[in-house]
Every structure is written in C-alpha cells, then in structure tokens.
C-alpha cells in the first residue's frame, strides 16, 4: 500500500480491499523503517493518526466517506499551525510552541477526513532551498542520501517521495514547493496567490506566501488542492472565487492549447541533463497536440534581485513578533530590550539573522526607495510580462530548476543557493499558479521537474497539461530504492 496514490487508496477503501487503519499503520511503520536516514519529520503524531484512521475506517465501512481524501495519510510542513501539536517553523525560537488553533488548511483537511501523520522539516522559517538550514537537523534526498531534498518544504517532498506519506503540504514563497518537488521526483503545486487561506500559516513574506500540495501524481494534486482552496474570511487576501472540481478537466488533453516557451528559462550554466529532459518533455506535449510558441520574459534576470529585497523586507517585519513575550523562547535579561535582543540572537539561525538584517536595512530611512521601492517596480515589470505572454498563450512550460539536487554542504555561498530559485521566483512575484511534474532523470539518477505556469486562478488548466504529460510518460511510477 506504500507508494499508492491517494485516489487508488480511496478506490481500495470503497471496494473494501484496504482499510484506513491498516494503511496508517503501514505508513507509520515505513516512517520507523526509513526516517532515521531521511529525517523528513520533526514530529510524528502516531496516536492521533491512528485515532483519525479509525474514525475514517468507520465511515468507509458505513458507506459514508467524507470524500476522496478520507483516510489519506498526509504530512504537513511545520509552518501550518496544528491545534495541540507543536509547530516550530523549523526554528529553535518556536521549539516549544503549541498552537491553540488549527490553520484553515489543517481544519479543511480534517473536515475532508485526511489522516495527519506528522509535521515535516524545513529550512528555518522557510528561508532556504535545501532543508539543510533547519534549526533541528537536515533532511536528505530519498534518491541519494548524500544530497538535499530541496527546500524550503524539503521534509514534505522527501516524505512523499520516500513513501512516508501518501500526500503532503508545503508553502511556496519563491519556489519552496515546486523546487523540492522537482528534486524529489514528485508533483508539487503553487496555487495562485490568494487561492488558499494563509490563516494559521507561520508568515515569511506575506505578499508571496502560498500553501500547496505535494502528490504522487497529478490526480492526487487536484484532489489535495480542491480540499484546501477557497475563500476564508479570516484571511483578507484570500480570493472570493468559486473552487472548480480540479479533477474534472484533467482528461481533456492538450490538443488545441498553446504553450509558451520562454527563452530566458534556458540559461548558461544550467545542467545539460535538465535542458535535455525538459526539451524532450515539450516534444511529448507537442506530440499530444499542443502548439508551442516562443514567449519573452526579459525581466526574469532581475526577478531574483527584486525578490531578495522584497522577501527580507517582509520577513524582517513578520519576524518582529518573536520577542520572547507572548510565546516561544525567552532568554532572561534585566531590561526589555536586552531580553528581546538576546532571545532573538539565541533563537534564530544564521540565515534568518542575515535576512532580517538585510530586510531591516532595505527598509531603513534613506534606503527605502533605492531598494524596496525599486524592487516593487521591477515586480510590476515581471507581472506585466507574464500578462503579455498569457495574452498569447494558454500556459507557459519551462524547467522548474536549472539543476538537479546538489550535495549537502555544497552551496555554502548564499548567492549560489539563491540561484536555485531563479525559475520559480517570478511566479511568486507575479502571483500566478505553477505546478512541477516529474519529467525524467539525470545521468546520475536524480529527478528533474517540468514546470507548467498558468494564469491567475487557472490551476485547472495547468493541472490538465501536467496530467496529459504524466499519462504519456511513466516517470511518476518510479520510486527511490530505499528499503
């Protein structure tokens, strides 16, 4: 039952061939067997998972399941607040924080009958692209334990790839779902900004953050997205638009669709294996009847710099709340300022400190216009170019990342780490949707991702193209050799 997609589990539950309790036990057993090596989880909630599975089993036996996710074992990135279960954001400063409420996403998943197995690792406060920079321990790539799973949602991606969860959730601020999905050979989707509620999600950069699913295949991604999408009055930025049945349009194929191919997404220095696999994937889509048209996104080369102004600026403001007063770590001191300064120095890791410093500097008097104002104008250019491209084409296809998973410790220099997200960041700056789907392997056996970007709220069409590609290939049926 490990490595079976959620929709296959639901079919088996319906036929009475499998039951949620046995499946939950199998997944917990798999975590016991494998996670000592991968280290995807920060917290496993064994008893709660089994209790939820028993409830689910009762519903399936009574013929009253709550839907396709009822009894599905899932993993949650540890930025999603879970009532009564420690939520750390991968930081020592929140080591003992136990939220008194569920994030809207978590509430909706419970309502859908999902069985939450635990909370997964991430780069501290989602700042990173490798899950090496967690305040607790690094996570490893199930395809090669000497390599990173990507990040920041590397724990959820690795858990799904290694068969330690049937599906998972992460957050994507600059690529933190799509990049680890590509590195781990699973499907990962960033919904349109505002499509999914951010209520109860530990904030990194509030104008960029978005919650989305990791899945074993595109059908599961459609179900997982459907369960969490939709308006939430507790998040003022959530979009009040109807949620379509994301599975309904999957079989429609790509014949008649025009797919844009941006020249700017094939750059010097990218891994030739990645370019080869992505170009071959585009040929597959062409063979399925899609028209391919060249599009131009010239501001792509400035997007990274704009992002590394906007993100630290917003993060420095969001992380001001960790002051040792209301929750989290406190280092005692004689006066308030000293207490706050020592608490933050002890609780935050090096990258978090760096970005807080950078963001505070960029927002400080005298530099605001030169950095923050300028970056916001560049953000407008990125948005305009996507809008112009989407006036000509239905979707944009591109590599998810320029390279495959790198070795732990390989990217010590921040700028080279930041370059990992060069193809995913523009999607966050512009707020559009994007999905990464497995499209092959490097010569060294590491997964490669094809990215399909869509117009705002056009998740259904992006998933439809990803599904057409997936059904024509077999990459999603391969699993890492991890006994």
């Amino acid at each position: 039952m490990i490595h079976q997609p959620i929709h296959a589990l639901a079919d088996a539950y319906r036929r009475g061939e499998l039951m949620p309790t046995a499946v939950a036990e199998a997944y917990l057993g798999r975590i016991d067997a494998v996670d000592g090596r991968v280290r995807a989880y920060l917290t496993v909630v064994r008893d709660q998972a089994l209790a939820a599975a028993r409830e689910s089993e009762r519903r399936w036996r009574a013929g009253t399941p709550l839907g396709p996710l009822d009894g599905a074992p899932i993993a949650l990135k540890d930025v999603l607040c879970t009532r009564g279960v420690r939520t750390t954001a991968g930081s020592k400063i929140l080591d003992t924080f136990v939220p008194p409420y569920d994030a809207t996403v978590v509430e909706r998943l419970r309502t859908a009958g999902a069985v939450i197995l635990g909370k997964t690792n991430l780069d501290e406060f989602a700042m990173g692209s490798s899950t090496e920079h967690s305040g607790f321990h690094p996570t490893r790539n199930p395809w090669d334990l000497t390599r990173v799973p990507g990040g920041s949602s590397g724990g959820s991606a690795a858990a799904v790839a290694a068969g330690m969860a049937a599906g998972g959730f992460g957050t994507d601020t600059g690529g933190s779902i799509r990049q680890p999905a590509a590195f781990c050979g699973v499907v990962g989707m960033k919904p349109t900004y505002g499509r999914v509620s951010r209520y109860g999600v530990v904030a990194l950069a509030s104008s960029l953050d978005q919650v989305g699913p990791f899945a074993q295949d595109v059908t599961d991604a459609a179900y997982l997205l459907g369960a969490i999408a939709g308006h939430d009055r507790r998040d003022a930025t959530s979009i009040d638009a109807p949620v379509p049945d994301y599975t309904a349009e999957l079989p429609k194929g790509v014949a008649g669709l025009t797919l844009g191919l941006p020249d700017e997404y094939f750059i010097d220095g990218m891994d030739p294996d990645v370019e080869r696999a992505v170009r071959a994937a585009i040929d597959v889509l062409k063979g399925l009847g899609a028209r391919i048209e060249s599009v131009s996104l010239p501001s792509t080369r400035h997007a990274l710099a704009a992002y590394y102004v906007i993100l630290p600026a917003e993060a420095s403001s969001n992380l001001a709340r960790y002051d040792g007063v209301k929750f989290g770590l406190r280092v005692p001191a004689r006066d308030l300022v000293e207490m706050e300064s020592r608490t933050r120095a002890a609780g935050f890791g090096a990258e978090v400190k760096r970005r807080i410093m950078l963001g505070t500097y960029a927002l400080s008097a005298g530099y605001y216009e030169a950095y923050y104002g300028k970056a916001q104008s560049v953000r407008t250019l990125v948005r305009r170019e996507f809008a112009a491209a989407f006036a000509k084409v239905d979707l944009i296809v591109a590599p998810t990342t320029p390279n495959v998973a790198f070795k732990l410790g390989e990217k010590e220099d921040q700028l080279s780490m930041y370059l990992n997200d060069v193809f995913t960041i523009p999607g966050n700056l512009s707020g559009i949707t994007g999905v990464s789907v497995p499209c092959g392997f490097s010569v060294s056996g590491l997964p490669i991702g094809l990215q399909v970007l869509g117009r705002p709220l056009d998740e259904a069409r992006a998933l439809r193209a990803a599904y057409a590609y997936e059904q024509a290939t077999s990459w999603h049926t391969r699993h890492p050799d991890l006994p």
Partner: protein
Amino acid sequence: MIDRNDVEHVARLTRLALTEAELERMRVELNSILAHLDTLRAVDTEGVEPTAHAVDVVNVMREDEVEPCLPQAAMLANAPDRSGELFRVPRIIEE
C-alpha cells in the same frame, strides 16, 4: 558599501544581540548580497508603478460584530512568563 557602524545600527533596530564575530561576518555577507541587489539600479523603471501585492486587493470590510474568540487561558499557555491574566516582561521604566 556598508560599514561596521551601519551593521551595528541595523542590529540594534531589529533587536539582535550579535557577537563580534557575527557582526564582522554580517558586514562581509551583506556587502556581497547588496552588490548583487545593486544590479536593480540598472533597470529602467521610470514611470512604472510599484506592486505591493500580486492580487489587486482593496480593504476587506465586515460587520463589526462580537464573535467568540480563543479563551484567555489558551492564549496565555505559551507565554514564557506571566502574572495572572497578563504577559510579564522585564522592567521597562526605571524606578
């Protein structure tokens, strides 16, 4: 280029008690990152409106009605220090 005084000033603004070694490393690293961010200066953004948000959001209003909220005990449960119904902090005002 930012110097050591700038780094100390920003660290104070953002309430980070950095060690000598951290301050020096921060100076070097921030200068390296800022050098990259300075490439933005070359982009022509004359007359381009800034984007603060990917979605055009306006103020979202709701009726001003009293609704149930989380109990006080639940909100105090994570506090590092408290006194009755209050969060307790070190002295702010000198005697």
